[in-house]
């Protein structure tokens, strides 16, 4: 087991290294710089002074090595646009906002999706099943920004019952969470239905009934426990994916968050911030995939054995 864990972490480290280098070079070579958002470009001398101050005048490779040296000690430098904070400080300041939005959206889409999926599976091949499956395909094909507009138009402008943006009490979150979670419902419902249907039609469920178990006992102890495995492995990564912030939703609704910060940092060429967020996202995602695999082992004994041996 240890060998498997070590190999996995080595993989993550190397990926992060490669990713940070590619992002580092990429962000430096995009035209325009942190000094660029002005009406008139800075004079040559002023430019040199500015670059010297932020160490941008050294060759890219050297800058990368210094950055890496600090990054290894978890010091990701200071964002240009918020000099009073550190990159990690700003990330962890904005993360709760994105995390809250993403978490609520995930919970929303999972609960609705799983319920729909179960209903569809319970009434397999009935009109209800077909209705839910078609609905989830349609929902899946509506792009997020289209939905964002429609939702804002209907609730904020026409009915004027919910604020269209900004950050305040809970009612500011209703629309963004709906717009963010809604598209995912389709996928969740179809995958839940698929897992449930496969499990219900399996032989060991028939054996469970043959043993004299009541329908509810069969459902909870046998069906759910087996259907859970594929569901968990695909639903768990949804959380970090959504909780690290969404660019569209945070921009359309004007919410603070990592997604919007990443877009702003990119347009302001705030290099330390761009790198910090990218590495943070990659680390969070790969750790979650790792945890999902481990969890996969906990839930499904068959995998646990093979993990010990490999």
């Amino acid at each position: 087991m240890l060998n498997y864990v070590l190999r996995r972490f080595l993989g993550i480290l190397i990926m992060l290294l490669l990713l940070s280098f590619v992002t580092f070079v990429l962000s430096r070579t995009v035209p325009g710089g942190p000094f660029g958002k002005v009406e008139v470009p800075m004079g040559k001398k002023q430019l040199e002074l500015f670059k010297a101050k932020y160490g941008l005048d050294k060759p890219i490779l050297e800058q990368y090595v210094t950055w890496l040296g600090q990054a290894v000690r978890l010091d990701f430098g200071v964002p240009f646009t918020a000099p009073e904070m550190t990159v990690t400080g700003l990330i962890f300041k904005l993360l709760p906002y994105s995390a809250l939005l993403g978490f609520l959206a995930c919970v929303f889409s999972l609960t609705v999706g799983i319920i729909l999926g179960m209903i569809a599976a319970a009434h397999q091949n009935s009109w209800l099943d077909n209705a839910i499956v078609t609905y989830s395909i349609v929902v899946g094909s509506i792009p997020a920004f289209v939905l964002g507009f429609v939702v804002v138009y209907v609730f904020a402008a026409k009915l004027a019952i919910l604020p269209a943006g900004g950050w305040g009490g809970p009612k500011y979150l209703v629309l963004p969470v709906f717009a963010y979670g809604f598209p995912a419902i389709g996928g969740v419902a179809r995958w839940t239905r698929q897992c449930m249907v496969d499990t219900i039609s399996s032989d060991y469920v028939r054996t469970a009934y043959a043993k004299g178990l009541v329908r509810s006992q069969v459902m909870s102890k046998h069906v759910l426990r087996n259907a859970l495995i594929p569901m968990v492995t695909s639903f768990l990564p949804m959380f970090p994916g959504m909780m690290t912030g969404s660019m569209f939703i945070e921009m359309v609704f004007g919410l603070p968050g990592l997604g919007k910060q990443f877009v702003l940092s990119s347009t302001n060429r705030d290099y330390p911030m761009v790198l910090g967020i990218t590495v943070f996202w990659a680390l969070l995602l790969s750790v979650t995939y790792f945890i999902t695999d481990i969890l996969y082992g906990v839930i499904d004994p068959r995998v646990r054995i093979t993990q010990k041996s490999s």
Partner: protein
Amino acid sequence: MSTRLVGLDFNGDPYPAGCESYRILEDGLTWEFKLRKELTFTDGSPVTAQDWEWTMKRAMGSGYDYAWYYSDIKNASKVSGGQLPAEELGIKAVDDFTLQISTELPTPYLPSVMCWFLVMSKKAYETAGEMYELDPKTFNGSGPWTLVKLDRATGCEWEVNKKYKGVRTVYFEKCHEGPLAGGLAAYMAGETIFYSVGAGTPPGEQAFINTSPILRAETHPVAPYLTDYFGFNTLPGKFAPLDNPDVRLAMCKAIDKATIVAQVGKGFALPAWGMLPKGFPGNNDDVLKELEPNKFDPEAAKQLLSKAGYADGKGFPEFEFWCRGSVSAYAEAVQAAWKDNLGIKVTLKGADYSGFTEQAFGQKAAPIYWVAYQLDYFDPATFLNIWRDGGRHPCEMPEWTAQYNAANSIMDPVKRFEAVKKAEIALVDSTVFFGMDSPFSYTMFPCNLAGPGAMPNRNGFSMGTGGGSVIEAYQHLHWSNSICRDALKGK
């Protein structure tokens, strides 16, 4: 948050804010500012001339991205260009409360330029370092507000500085800056105090506002103070034939400015015949309107183009038409006009702000560029200075620069405006750029909001209620007890 050396009142005229008075000395180049003795920083220490001098010199000497704005000050470009040490800059503290600023050429509009000159506390800088203004504990501003909280996620909070003895009257106790819900609904519900109605507002909503008497009463026009224009890269040989004036003239005459602005601007934009928007001091629309580049004549344009060797656009290279930010509808209209009237094809390219500034203006790499300029103070110089050689635009016009500098340094205002108008005519005739439109909008604020900021100024515009990026917006306002808003809620 901090005090300006000179303020701009609601009519756009400069008035002494940080200083008590100012006057021009005999040599016509040096201005002397008598500072307010009672003005203090939050920590109680007086604001001295040394603070002002140090603020400017430190800035100009250390990677300051707005160094170009103060190029009128003596040796400013040499100091910011690194040829001279900061000491040589034309700004000197004669004594604790007298500041002298000398200029390269006679600059009648210098006081207006100084409305952006905000003082920093030398003591706080030396003790708490460069970011003293970002931390409530070390904040040491000279304005009526002190920083209470700075939160990068939800915005920052300010409180009235009890010890402030400056000129600006403030009626609010606290002010919270942060993301707010937008939309007419939020305005009517009272969640937001200001709502701007412009080209983007759908006609349906405009109709809705016009039909409701209360909302109509709360709508006030905002002065047009921004000009959208596109320019050619006329550097010799760089993007031939754009360096040929006849070709540029043909391309200008092929554009029906009035119709495009009327259609695309949808009644919220006026055609810009030159650089200065309508109603702005020194505007000369009636004359500029009749100039050749502004006269839409597709036939003459075709002849000019064929005279230059590109009959019906044959052989004309396909240039890139850069837009700052996303591609603008006006650029698409121009692209269509050139294709229909001259057979010239251009491809539109949207470049984000920072990339555009560096490539189009820094490296002069854009053949044709679409951009806008917004006023910094109420004097023609704010719009025309940027066309001087060595500025941001990819063109060299030594004769025009000389003519303009001569005109711009006439101390007598009447003669100066006459000469500057001639310079603008010459600029438009040179077809280096093509003014397109000056968008204007309406701002809405509740009728129970009063105070000097809410009263219309001599041109009929209320400057203190949003959109007044120059003037201390949102101040000089206070609530008055008026029942008009209750009727709205009742509706």
